[in-house]
């Protein structure tokens, strides 16, 4: 590897990490600042791996499952009274069904989320609080199963307006200097952590997905499978998301999240059952 390559690696990989751990505006330890670092505006960037399951009765009575990989991004406004977030991401991978033989499908899933939650209960200067509000989120799924011939492609958009309740538990703990995960050295001081858990239940669940007959190459020569989609309201969905936030002294956050999102919709002939178990690992960069 030549010097130029080394320099490229340094600038593309290491510089963002240095930026993350040593934000110029927040280089002071939390305990020495007047600012309440539990709150702020954050840009979250996460890598995601999901164990996902699909069953689409329009083409098969069998459950397809597998790992999808991708990433998510989110702009989050964590305020004392409000939690507002907008973001999205995508997953892609191979799902399969193993009977006598394996049938494979490629799955693409694009996710978006917007939510606003208002605090309605708090205790001990918001060591604990509960926030509730509305959430609008959805998935655009594309599944490609070559074995299904002219019904090989299914494209659907599943959108939900949910009522959401979020529980936040903020922990402040005086700590001595040590190494986080045996790698990253940390300073002594007041360590902040947060455990959040949010449950969302649907108020309006909608689906725009293939109708009775799935087909992606019709007789007028225009392969427009979207014409064969139908909009329906109904079905149900449950979402549960838990985040563990580990605040660095510079105000940024190391975050691990688990998101469970499952739904059933459609009619008897094209009922769709989906479950995602998504593990997110990423950073939240403080924007203010």
């Amino acid at each position, binding site marked *: 590897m030549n010097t130029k390559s080394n320099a490229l690696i340094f600038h593309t990989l290491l510089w963002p990490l240095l930026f993350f751990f040593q934000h110029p505006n927040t280089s002071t330890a939390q305990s020495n600042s007047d600012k309440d670092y539990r709150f702020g505006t954050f840009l979250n960037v996460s890598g995601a791996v999901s164990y996902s399951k699909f069953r689409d009765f329009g083409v098969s009575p069998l459950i397809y499952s597998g790992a999808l990989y991708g990433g998510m991004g989110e702009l989050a406004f964590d305020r004392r009274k409000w939690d507002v977030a907008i973001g999205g991401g995508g997953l892609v991978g191979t799902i399969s069904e193993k009977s006598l033989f394996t049938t494979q499908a490629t799955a693409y899933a694009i996710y978006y989320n917007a939510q606003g939650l208002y605090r309605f209960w708090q205790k001990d200067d918001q060591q604990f609080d509960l926030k509730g509000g509305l959430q609008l989120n959805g998935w655009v799924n594309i599944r490609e199963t070559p074995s299904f011939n002219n019904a090989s492609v299914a494209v659907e958009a599943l959108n939900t307006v949910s009522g959401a309740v979020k529980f936040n538990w903020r922990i402040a703990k005086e700590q001595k200097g040590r190494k986080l995960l045996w790698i990253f050295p940390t300073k002594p001081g007041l360590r902040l952590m947060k455990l959040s858990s949010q449950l969302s239940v649907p108020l309006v669940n909608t689906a725009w997905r293939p109708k*009775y*007959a799935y087909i992606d190459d019709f*007789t007028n020569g225009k392969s427009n499978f979207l014409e064969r989609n139908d909009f329906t309201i109904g079905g149900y969905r*449950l979402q549960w998301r838990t985040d563990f936030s580990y605040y660095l002294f510079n105000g940024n956050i190391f975050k691990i999240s688990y998101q469970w999102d499952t739904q059933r919709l459609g009619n008897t002939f094209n009922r769709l059952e989906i479950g995602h178990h998504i593990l997110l690992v990423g950073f939240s960069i403080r924007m203010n």
Partner: protein
Amino acid sequence: MKKHIFFLLLLLLGCSACEDLVFTENEKTDKAQDNFEFLWKTANEKYAFFDYKKIDWDAVYRQYKPQIQTGMSQDSLFRVLFRMMNELKDGHVNLISPFNVSKYNFDLLGPTNIDTRIVKEKYLRENVYTTGAFLHNAIANNQVGYVRYSSFSNKVSGFDMAFVFSRYAKTKGLIFDLRQNGGGSIANVFTMLNYLANQRTFLYRSYIKNGPGREDFEGPQDAYAEPTGNIRYAGKVAILVDRGSFSATSFFTLGARELPNVTIIGDSTGGGLGIPNGGQLPNGWTYRFSISRTLTANGENFESGIPPDIRVLLTESDRLKGIDTVIERAVVELLK
């Protein structure tokens, strides 16, 4: 704190278990009875041509149900389902397992109306042109262009059509030989028809199943030829077909019938104007069958084969002389 985290994790796991509310019981099964019932019912609700073909699907159920035995081998089950699906007499019907694929031999309903060796030796000859998927040459003292297109699975581009039109621009007629062309991509149908049409032309209309009832169809979806490209062929055009001309080839033939300068010559096509829809059985095998129907402007349904304008079959005497009866008749028609 540990107690709280443990409680939260427990709650999380409990909630994730709610997934069983979403995912109903796994229907995966190798049981012969269940797979027979599933396939029969799915075809019963989705297949498009029961009435047109006068098939009593309930009678088919009564005929094949007794042949399904508990514990029968996968191969035996496949053979029963193979025979049951072949009652639909449709080349767009297949059952696909890891060890076998069922198919209906629509091409055996008539003679193979082409001898490819004669075509190669007498009409395409050694100086044959290969332009994309087309093999072509001038015949009948350079008065007719002959184009052999053996599969709609092979892509046809606008360039291919323009080159053929330009090379045979001075001929009196052009032959597109689609005998034994078993179909392929419908996109190629429109590439060709859009070059053959001189003006926007209605071709046919299609209807697609939208419910389990025999007459639950939505549509129509109309298909038009939209002239593309700057070059047009001014002479007459003959389309050669036989019972082995199926699916996309039948769509092409049905559309070409609407063009004023086109004559269909040969045998009836194999049909296949229903678009096949795929799916899966509880044991993982896959299937496909027709879920749409396509009609002419007058409402005629040629699912079982499009009749030619001029019926011509290869004769044994011509074959022995190394002559293709159908091509020779097309030449006569084009030079009239």
